[in-house]
């Protein structure tokens, strides 16, 4: 029977009857139940006769709209100190350092530069060659003819096997070593990784890993597996992406103290995810430029803060989560979300796509964008260069490398931008 006439006889009789039956059935006498808490009135009992049933499949709550206050963005008044480069140096593509007095950079033409605290010194141009078909490193000592100037100039990608010079795209410091790296694309199923290491005698030596298996996080042939390792509250987190051989295999895998944590089904086949954690049961997962989820170690909830794309997530002394993303491409925003209380602020940060620093003090960067959070205020800067890469020292000094937006030269038909490097001192602006 439809309950179309108000509370049933059973429901109407319940409050008084409950006392009798409680006494009768529960053995020893009990104190009277604290009404009305003991007798929550069923919602349905209050229906009017004409009211249709309240089906749960028609009752879905709309996801709560997160209204965030607009965050103020002040103007950055700090100094940009230019770092003089050797003449005719093209765009600087990458920077890494041991300290503010030992900064290494690589230019688009392969020059490696070092700042020693006083000046920039040219540390040579490592030259490595791979065969044109497959990106395999050519040992020029054993095959000098392949590496001869004329043979190299005549060599065409994808053509008959000959030697092609590699172009370095990044530089890194690994202990005592300085290493430049290139990803060689020859039209095969994946790129090959070639590196050159600066030896103690100041000579560069070409290297390529021999292994041809495809590992999660591998940048290409010759590169090993890479995973994100985190530790939070005594628990270890290990996040691996897919093994990519044209297609992405295996999806993402997250281990928490050795246990595999189920991931959102959307991440089953890639793309690779990123992770940040406040606690073993407060995990934040995102795919750069795409969606984000928050997990409690058992399941995940899509993160909806009005950002179509999320690029980075980090935390501020466990109180706030910072989310850098974009409402749409070109409308980048920074959200500060108070995890404990809910709510937060939304800062307009057009152009900012990545971060250097931590929750207390960080920089947001993009090719033409630079913002500084000093722990209290977000400030927008006008960078005097097109930013290609950046390094931030432990003391907070920021090194920006890239190109001069105005200075160009030509080489044949090609227009080449001139390199530019600026130091932005740390501390309060």
């Amino acid at each position, binding site marked *: 029977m439809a309950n179309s006439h108000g509370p049933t006889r059973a429901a109407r009789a319940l409050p008084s*009857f409950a006392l009798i*039956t409680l006494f009768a059935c*529960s053995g020893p006498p009990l104190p009277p139940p604290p009404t009305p808490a003991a007798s*929550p009135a*069923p*919602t349905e009992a209050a229906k009017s006769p004409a009211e249709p049933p309240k089906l749960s499949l028609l009752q879905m709550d709309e996801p709560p709209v997160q209204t965030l206050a607009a965050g103020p963005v002040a103007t950055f008044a700090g100094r940009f100190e230019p770092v003089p480069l050797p003449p005719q140096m093209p765009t600087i593509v990458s920077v890494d350092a041991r300290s503010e007095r030992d900064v290494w950079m690589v230019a688009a033409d392969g020059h490696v530069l070092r700042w020693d605290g006083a000046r920039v010194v040219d540390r040579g141009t490592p030259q490595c060659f791979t065969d044109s078909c497959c990106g395999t490193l050519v040992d020029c000592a054993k095959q000098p003819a392949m590496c001869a100037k004329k043979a190299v100039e005549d060599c065409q990608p994808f053509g008959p096997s000959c030697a092609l010079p590699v172009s370095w795209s990044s530089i890194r410091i690994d202990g005592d070593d300085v290493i430049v790296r290139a990803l060689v694309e020859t039209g095969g199923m994946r790129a090959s990784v070639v590196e050159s290491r600066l030896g103690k005698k100041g000579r560069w030596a070409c290297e390529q890993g021999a292994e041809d298996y495809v590992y999660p996080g591998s940048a290409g042939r010759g590169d090993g597996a890479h995973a994100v390792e985190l530790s939070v509250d005594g628990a270890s987190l290990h996040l691996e992406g897919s093994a990519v051989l044209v297609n992405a295999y295996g999806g993402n895998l997250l281990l928490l*103290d050795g246990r595999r944590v189920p991931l959102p089904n959307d991440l089953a086949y890639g793309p690779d995810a990123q992770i940040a954690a406040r606690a073993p049961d407060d995990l934040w997962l995102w795919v750069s430029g795409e969606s984000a989820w928050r997990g409690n170690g*058992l399941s995940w909830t899509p993160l909806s803060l009005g950002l179509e794309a999320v690029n980075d997530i980090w935390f501020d002394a466990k109180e706030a989560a910072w989310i850098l993303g974009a409402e749409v491409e070109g409308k980048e925003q920074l959200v500060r979300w108070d995890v404990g209380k809910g709510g937060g602020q939304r800062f307009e940060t057009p152009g900012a796509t990545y971060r250097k620093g931590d929750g207390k003090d960080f920089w947001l960067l993009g090719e033409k964008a630079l913002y500084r959070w000093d722990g209290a205020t977000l400030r927008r800067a006008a960078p005097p260069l097109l930013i290609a890469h950046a390094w931030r020292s432990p003391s907070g000094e920021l090194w920006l490398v890239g190109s001069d937006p105005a200075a160009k030269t030509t080489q044949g038909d090609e227009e080449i931008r001139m390199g530019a490097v600026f130091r932005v001192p740390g501390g309060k602006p």
Partner: protein
Amino acid sequence: MRRALVPLLLASACSAAPPPPPPAHVPAPSASAKAPAAAPAPAPRLPHVELSGLDAKTVLTAYGPDGDELYEVPIGWALAVVGAPDGGAYAVVMEREPKNPYTPYVLRIDGSGRETFRTSLQKGGFTWRLFRSAPAGTAPKPEGDRLFVFEFSGPNPQGKRRMHVLDAASGKPLREVFLAFSDIDARGGVMAVSDGSKVSRIGPDGEPVWSVHVSRFPSLDPSLPEGPRKVAVGTDGTVLTGTSDGSLVALDAEGKPLYQLGVRGSVSRIDARAGGAFLVDTDDGPVLVDHGTVRETAESRPVEGVRVVDKRKGKWTEESPTTPAVPWKPTIAHRVQREGLSPEKPFQHVQSVVAAAPNDVWVLGKREQAPGEDADRLFHYDGRTWSDLGVPSMSFPKEVFAEGVPARVSRFVPLNLSRSPSGALLVLGVRVGGAVRPCVLERAGSAYRERRELRAAFSKVEIEYGTKLSHTASAGGREVLCSSDPAVCVEFGRGVTPKILPDGEGPEIPDLLGDHESPVPLKSTWASGRDDVWATGITGGVARFDGQRWWRILGIEPVSGLSVTGSGRGDVWIYGDAGLWHVTPEPRAEADLEGTTSPPPPPAAPSAALSIVGADASYRLERVVLDVDGQKPLRAALHVAEGPGGVVWLHDGARVVEYDGAHARLLYQLPKPEPFFCWYAPEPDCNLCAQCTERKPKSLSCQRCAAPTAAGEGALLAPEGWLPVRGGRATPEPAPLSDLLSVTVAPSGAIWAVSAAGDDTPHAVIHGPRGVRLVTGLPPAAYADLAVRADDDAWFAGGLTGASTSDGRVLPEGEGTLVRFDGRTFTRHRAPDGALLSVAAAGPGEAWAVGLAGAVLHAKGTTVEAFHLERDGGKRLPVILRSVAATGPNDVWIVGDGSTLLRWDGKALRRVDASQAGNEAAFSAVIAPGAKPGWVVGPGGIFRIVPVR
């Protein structure tokens, strides 16, 4: 109802449960659904039309109510046809025009077979559906009737598709509307479309009259893909919509809700049937939904109306006969063990098995999925262990394979195994060099000898790469070797001059089954006798015929392409690409625990709100870190279970620790996974193929994962599956059921386990002290948990449908289900808010169950009350409730996400302070405190529940 009133109140009051929700809403057609426009009386007898010929040359034939042919007209390339009560029809046809080679038209054939209009639709694809606005059975009117033409081609960027509205009498185009729809149906003047989470009724002008937002049941993983939403309109105007989680919602013609319920499986189609019923097709099979009542086996009649019988080539019609399925009963009388060189590395790609005796078994296959494992290897089993005998190979002298071509060396590629008449092992293969030639090696000791007498016979036959070879031998010494591509057989053997046999003179395949039909479409058979016939199915399944009936063998992956062989009764081998399984008698198999299945229950009443009334200050949490001998301390756990004597097992997904109140020791540690990687694996016709190692560890998907029966004794569910624990050691063992999600110990000491598997195999098994029993009669569902007070007082909770995730887990989804077993009958109850994840028995015949979206069910006897948690302000609190425990009817503990720790004390549901764990902790398991403190665990920590002094 009146007679049931007093017992119901007594039951409710004695268990001190929350007041019951109102009785179920019994659906009845609404006033509007009963209106003449919505429920016309169809003409008693109507004409029908028949389509014949080919799609591109369709012939339409109309028959009058008495079956006389009215006319026959060719209508060309017909894409959609709907009949009219005057014997005419409307059709969408595709025409080929010089300017636009594919132009769709709508045409009308009147009752005499004359075409009265042909209207161009300008453009469109090849999938269309047609509906008339007028009620079925009413003849086309000269004016006012509308014809709705829906195109199902790919939607536009806004996700919308095209609908044309035409004047049904003249064919004049009236409107073109873009709508989002994945399904449409119309009947009795009611036209409904569905898409995603929306159902709309479309009015005569093509605009929505009403739209209703219909959600799915809540899911543990909201990112799981949703299937398309289906819709149908019943003969009484009821609109029924369903989707991939088995959820169904019925609305009346005015869009007002009538009822909701769940069926098992993803809804793939809904058809209106006579009398206001619906036939709902799901991937679990069809069910009839008759005014809210689900009938699983009921027959139904089609809706009366002008039928269109499509007899064109390749079309399925409702009249197509279906063969009744051959019954087969699941059994655990056979033990199934997956084989390999080690338990961690089972054989892969097993091509062939020769079982000469239980202690003399030969296998051709691969050791594992790994780089370099390209060639098949030979393995031998001596009854105890496996030996790897390497890749069968032989050196061949250079040979001229074709006239005028220099001699070349060939290499041997093994394809199959067999035995010679003398019992020697034969390795059948091909020599690959300048050509592909069959070749047979005979194993002699540890070496091989080529059966060279075949060379001449096969030298003139060009064998295709990838051919299959088979070999039979008779006791008299005659042997026949056949290739599949081309199909050629060569006779040879003792005293036989090798020769190619004429077509049709190959070896006879013995008929092992006689007149008995198999329950599976046969891939392979083997028998030790007429009463021991084994069969594997093309699409999976292993069956045994005992001379009387078929039995379904459990414990083998439901993969296609498996074959069967054996050495004799009780020694059977199943093999294929997926691996190798040894099937032997299970000495511990006991008779099934059988019960009858109750009919599906009617739709559940909407759940009532259950408020959380303040705080229960009598308990608090204490964080615990367990020091484990020689191990990293245990700081968190996903599951906790208490055994006799107070021994507690804590399971963190990678380790299981036993705690006796003073010391913690390790019972189980997940094996360290091997690195995951992929490699190039070119295969014929595949230049872009990769293979990968298995990505491990697997996720732990169980809800109740530990069942201690004593210190160091019991069973676990772990990423490797079912692990009995004996003497403090856990060892994986094959389990007859897959996707086990919960294990628990009954008072008898037996361990019960439930499965969430998506198939129709049994879903519960009992491991008792004396043996193993299947539980049969339990209705299929994705069971997440169970609670057992006795063999005749057990509860099973879960979701009607299981959702498979990409990492191999099965999540309980769809409508929640709670099943009570009283020793005779499995009685089903619906949980209207979604899948249940946990159940606890609170007393004889009484249980509490919790699940998704804050769902709480209280059952006592035959009365079940559904509640949902409510937050302040009267809104639902849709938190995931993961576990429930009870020491009695008045002491029930519920935990879940958002630091939910609740206690029902017989009077009210109160929150217990969980601030020790933070504000958003996920609690996954609870042991209610009694004489000793209780436990709450989750990924964020381990806590004792202690009384506040």
